[in-house]
């Protein structure tokens, strides 16, 4: 094996170790109560077709209002309707559990990502988020 081939093999080994550490981290997250609670709550939301559709519709509408607000063309009536829809939705136990699970899991993941960002001077979320798809 040439020196160049050895260097490539060594780099691949080190990357494989890093990927194994990433999987070990994922398994640790997977064992956390925050993750398990989130999965349970997510499952419950997915099973309730009506609520799920209503929640997604709310999210889409919220985004529309947000764009309109930025453009200075948001209608007060539309904003009020959105607030009212949120008041109703956020009182539904399945959704409350989902949002609480999401908050807990996000807090844990952000703590983890903050360490990576500080160590390498990067923005994990920005690097790994496809443009236009942020945030869960």
């Amino acid at each position: 094996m040439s020196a160049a081939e050895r260097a490539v093999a060594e780099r691949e080994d080190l990357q494989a170790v890093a990927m194994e550490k990433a999987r070990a981290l994922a398994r640790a997250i997977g064992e956390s109560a925050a993750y398990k609670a989130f999965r349970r709550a997510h499952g419950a939301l997915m099973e309730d077709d009506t609520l799920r559709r209503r929640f997604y519709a709310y999210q889409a509408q919220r985004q529309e209002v947000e764009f309109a607000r930025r453009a200075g063309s948001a209608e007060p009536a539309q904003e009020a309707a959105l607030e009212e829809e949120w008041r109703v939705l956020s009182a539904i136990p399945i959704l409350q559990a989902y949002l609480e699970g999401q908050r807990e899991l996000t807090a844990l993941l952000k703590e983890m990502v903050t360490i990576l960002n500080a160590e390498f001077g990067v923005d994990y979320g920005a690097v790994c988020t496809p443009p236009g798809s942020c945030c869960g």
Partner: protein
Amino acid sequence: MQADRSDARPLVLERTRELVAALKATPAGERLVEVEQRFRADPEIQQILGTLRERDEAFRQAQEAGNLTQEQIRALREVQARYREHPLVHEIELARMPFEILLRDVNGAMANILDLDVGRIVGPANK
């Protein structure tokens, strides 16, 4: 749930530190850390960054107050150009590229196990 979460937290943070160490050992990680250290220790680039922050802040304040001047715009552009053209900035951008590919692989490896996208959930840091 709060108590359960605190139970899982130490293990997650320990595994995170192990991942950091493993990433630092890769050529891409080693290179980025080395350039980052030089970047942080370089007095010229730190001075440029300080000026950039000051002028950016002055620009924002003037914009909000509606009294932005051409001189303020020119001063901000001048320091932005000095920053962009600094060799260490080029170096750090080059060092970040392979590391960012590695980070996306890390995110993908975690997604395969968790069935969720950590990067998408946390979103950009400044959001």
